[in-house]
């Protein structure tokens, strides 16, 4: 009897959870195999959504976007954390300032960056041309080889402070004895970083990276607010394609089919990642 009482108390919350999470997931699955009249159509939506060229292009763009964002976010974040872990005057202030990009709402950041990158009015071109670094303004957001890197740069700027703060927290849990022991053995600063800090914060980096991957895969704000996926689909990532299908073309069934496929790909990536990188207990480098 007693064990049932617990279930009774948890039931209302479970029902709400079911309605808010499980139902939409299953409904999306159902939408993906039916047409707009609700009739079962098998895999028709899947083949329809795979046909246009933009689907393949969006997948490649997504991979670039995720890989580029993660690499620089982790690199910059860890570097910043190690620097912020040093003892210097005004450290607390610098640490707070470093967090600002992460705190700014995505849409505000995106719109501001769009103006800064603008070919005609943008401050970036103004600075580069007035100092003589460039002869004439560059269309950062309108050239095929600069638009995606620009998007990645904004995403890195937005999220590296998050990595830094998480890694910083990890660094502060490293016992002083480890540094002392390393110094006794004659380790230089760089050897401390390599053999003490990095192995100790590896679990933090692993967890943060997984979060970053999931966020980057779902990120729509920055790109949609700045380029809407353009020019000529150069910055369309799969989440934007799903959004377009559902809310601009009102093709909910095809959007659901693409979501299902995207979900499967994301699950594969996440599983592969956690298998490969998750730290084993008791592992020592």
């Amino acid at each position, binding site marked *: 009897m007693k064990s049932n009482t617990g279930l009774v108390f948890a039931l209302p919350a479970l029902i709400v959870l079911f309605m808010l999470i499980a139902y939409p997931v299953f409904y999306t699955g159902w939408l993906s195999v039916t047409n707009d009249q609700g009739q079962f159509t098998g895999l028709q939506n899947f083949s329809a959504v795979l046909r246009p060229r933009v689907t393949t292009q969006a997948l490649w763009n997504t991979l670039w976007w995720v890989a580029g964002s993660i690499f620089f976010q982790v690199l910059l974040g860890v570097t910043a954390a190690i620097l912020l872990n040093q003892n210097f005057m005004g450290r607390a202030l610098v640490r707070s300032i470093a967090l600002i990009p992460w705190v700014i709402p995505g849409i505000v950041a995106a719109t501001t960056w769009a103006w800064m990158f*603008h070919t*005609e009015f943008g401050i970036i071109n103004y600075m580069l041309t007035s100092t003589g670094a460039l002869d004439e303004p560059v269309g950062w957001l*309108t050239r095929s080889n600069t638009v995606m890197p620009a998007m990645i740069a904004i995403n890195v700027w937005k999220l590296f402070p998050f990595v830094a703060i998480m890694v910083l927290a990890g660094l502060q849990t490293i016992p002083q004895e480890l540094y002392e022991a390393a110094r006794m053995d004659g380790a230089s600063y760089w050897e401390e970083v390599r053999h003490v800090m990095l192995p100790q914060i590896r679990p933090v980096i692993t967890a943060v990276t997984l979060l970053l991957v999931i966020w980057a895969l779902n990120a729509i704000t920055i790109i949609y607010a700045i380029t809407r996926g353009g*020019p000529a689909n150069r910055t369309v990532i799969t989440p934007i394609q799903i959004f377009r299908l559902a809310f601009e073309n009102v093709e909910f069934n095809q959007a659901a089919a693409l979501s299902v496929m995207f979900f499967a790909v994301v699950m594969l990536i996440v599983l592969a990642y956690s298998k490969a990188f998750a730290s084993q207990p008791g592992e020592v480098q």
Partner: protein
Amino acid sequence: MKLLKLAGFFALSVLSTVTMNTGAQAGDVVWWAPNWGEERARTLAQKYMAANAGTNIKIEVTVANGLPERVLTAMRSGAAPDIIEVQHGWVNGYAQGDLIVPLDDTIQDKEDYVKAAINYVSWNGKIWAMPYRIETHGVIYNKDHFKEAGLDPEKPPKTWDDLIAAAKALTKSGRYGFGITGGGEVGNTIFRSLPFIWMNGGDIISPDMKKAVLNSPEAVKAVEFYTNFYKQGLAPKSTLENDGLALRRLFIAGTVSAYQSGQFDLPAIQKENPNIKLGAMMIPAPAGKQTAAVLGGWSYVIPKSAKNPVESKKFLQFLNTTENQGYYTDTFPARTSSIKLPRFDDSMLKPFAEMLPYGRPVPVHKNWVKIVQAYFDGIQRILLGDQSVQKSMDEANEEIQALLN
């Protein structure tokens, strides 16, 4: 105390249902009017009610944002008002969906209306709406820039060749002769580039909507003409990120000397930079051919579920007299006799008025949003330098054909 409060709520809710039910009486006409014309709508309603005792015109103000969804929901739910103002392009869908009533018996002096406007709202041999406001793009230009470039500001370009020559003369020292759009919402570039295809005898899809014809020599030539302004450096470097609003800003800043837009841009320019000497011209056409433009504007419809169609039709006839239509419209009236009113006797507006007879409706197809997206992507590929005009339009044509099957 608690009980009292509860009783109060109850009474209130009963009261509100009662007023809601009695809100629409036999003599009531509920009119959904957009917010930009609210004041004028109220004036007209007062006038009508003063002359027709027993009829009560109830105005409910709408906003542009989300209006198509709102109208469709109201019509489908069967709880629609008596008169709704909608864009011409939406009318056909309502008629085909059996959501509105034909207005052949309501429209007076049909011959007085601009033909393209009537065509826009006709389907299956009947007229389904009363057009009252029409507009097209023209070209707005900076007269001082023309003078500085050695061009006669009173004799603006008439043909494509003239326009290219003028743009070349105007483009110098950080100025661009003719701004085109290549970014922002798809519609911006459709409104500006599709007319050139039409002028040259081409189209995006065939009249029977069965065949994509975007890679025909006529269409390709027109797309080449449009995109060349950017490719040859006559339009700003930012073209791929510019929409209509960005062009207006660049024009106000003096960076762009001419661009396509509607007369609604004129007051905004004058307000922000009163020093600019404004000029307007008809959109240049290929030598020996007629100009063209996308026709935009608004119509009145009566939903099938309207409570008071008889009185509504009478009121519509009042709204669409020469006088009242000319008074109510924001841009131009759909009646040619209304355009003769003193209000439209403005030399700045003349080229826009002259464009009206060349205004054309865009096709009504269920995949139109995707069709224009494919076309727009093609334009961007050309502007980016990814593909030649022919190759890009071939690819877009193929995608559009798949959407028509």
